[in-house]
């Protein structure tokens, strides 16, 4: 191997050149690009795999990155189908949304915490800083660690909407990104309170992680109550398109909403839509 610097330089320029040249040439196989919500992404990947196995020659590429990105990419045409873990806002109504599953949000505490239920008012008081110690809600004498979600997350928006509080009124001790980070934070801190997706929490609780799910407004936080519609804090998981879907996108969305994928939806700890 005698790679002189000259050759190296030439090779590197060549590489740059080829990249520029061949970047435009695309393969002719049928490809479906999905981007968006990290909550929906694992589900979409699994649905995509089954869709591929039923439609040889089709490739379903799922990219993650957040609901807003799903919406932006669908608008710009970068993605054939967007994914969003919330309903569309008024400013986004131009897009078409197709719900493929439901997810709920529940309040979680550490398992060692003796508090077993909190009223909606108490939750609001804790999150707005009116109650700062567990002894005021029947718990031990310990300061409450309030875990909040980062700005812009669909979970945060739903939480704020349900409890009718403004994010500017919340004084968190920890701000987290994804669900699992929330669960790990609460599991590592007996004085913490947080809110995460029910499916994730239920999975972790049954697999020995020291957390517990609190009922919201008296309704136990279970996937069952979520699917029969009695649990109040829930959100749809949506697939989005720019216009009325046609061709492959239409087939995929129909497939993702059909009974054929209900087992996948349950496997990912979401609730299939009754159909």
């Amino acid at each position: 191997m005698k790679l002189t610097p000259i050759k190296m330089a030439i090779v590197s320029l060549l590489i740059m050149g080829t990249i520029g040249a061949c970047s435009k040439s695309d393969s002719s196989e049928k490809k479906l690009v999905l981007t968006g919500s990290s909550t929906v992404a694992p589900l979409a990947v699994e649905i995509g795999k089954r869709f591929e196995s039923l439609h040889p020659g089709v490739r379903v590429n799922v990219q993650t990155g957040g609901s807003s990105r799903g919406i932006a990419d669908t608008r710009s045409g970068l993605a054939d189908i967007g994914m969003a873990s919330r309903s569309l806002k008024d400013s986004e109504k131009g897009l078409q949304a197709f719900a493929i599953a439901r997810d709920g949000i529940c309040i979680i505490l550490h398992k060692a915490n003796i508090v077993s239920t909190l009223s909606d008012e108490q939750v609001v008081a804790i999150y707005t800083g009116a109650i700062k110690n567990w002894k005021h809600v029947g718990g031990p004498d310990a300061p409450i660690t309030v875990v909040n979600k980062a700005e812009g997350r669909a979970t945060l928006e739903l939480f704020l909407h349900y409890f009718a509080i403004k994010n500017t009124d919340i004084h968190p001790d920890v701000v987290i990104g994804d669900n699992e980070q929330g669960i790990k934070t609460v599991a590592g801190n007996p004085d913490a309170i947080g809110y995460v997706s029910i499916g994730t929490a239920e999975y972790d609780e049954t697999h020995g992680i020291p957390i517990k799910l609190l009922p919201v407004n008296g309704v136990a936080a279970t996937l069952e109550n979520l699917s029969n519609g009695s649990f109040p804090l829930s959100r749809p998981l949506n697939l989005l398109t720019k216009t009325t879907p046609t061709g492959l996108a239409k087939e995929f969305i129909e497939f993702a909403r059909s009974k054929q994928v209900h087992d996948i939806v349950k496997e990912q700890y979401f609730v299939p839509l009754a159909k």
Partner: protein
Amino acid sequence: MSRSRSDIFLIWALRCCAAIAGAIVLLIGAFLVIESMPALQHVGITRFFTDASWHPSADASQGTFNLAPMLWGTLLAMSGSVLLATPLGIGSAVFCHYYAPSSIAKFYRRLIELLAGIPSVVYGFWGLVVLVPLIRQLQPPGPSLLAGIIILTIMILPTVALMADAALTNVPAQYLRGAAALGLSRWGTIRGVVFPAAKSGIITGVILQTGRAIGETMAILMVCGNVVQTPSRIFDPIRTLTANIALEMAYAGGDHRSALFVSGLILLALIVVLVSAAEVHSKGRIYG
């Protein structure tokens, strides 16, 4: 010196390489400026430092965009970890070269090389499940500036240790023989001969690690608590500018998204300031 044709060709090829390498940062800078333009126009520069808080989800007129607490968070986490990692890293390199028996030194180097490649996610994960609960027992809530400093220190230590190690390797052997001939003790040699000779390499390592400390994202996001506030104690949670981008970018639109690019621009400006300061301080002779 006479120059052959191949030499001239070589120099131009090398200049092309250098130009490409140098242009990348300009590209990135331009990209950041273009993306942050909407926020700079709608919000204005001063509001990024004078607004009441950081709640940018609403549009420019209603949201608040104060980045200053995160700037402090970044600076504190950076300086804390650099202050810790520099002596530890240099100490590690000195250990390898002048104290450890060669078998231990070899093992130690391999260990450090490995650490350079452990994903930041793994450090963050470890920090979240091991370190943060430990700190919580000391002083709640746990996720804090301190946790961030410790994790950052562990992460950047390999860089400074390996760079210092390479710098020590390059100290000419005759210096050491000279020192031995003068009857200098081990530490006397290291302080009086080795450090001055290896200064350039060590400083390079420190600059690189400072950059990494500023730029680190994922691990910091997992252990620092991410609350937007100016910390008053080392146990207070903080949010750094990088964590701010990583946490919110995927969920941001409009002016909020653009404001996150302003975070990136501030980070870039911070690094430009640092690099210039280093240059002024050494009057451009760091690398000479």
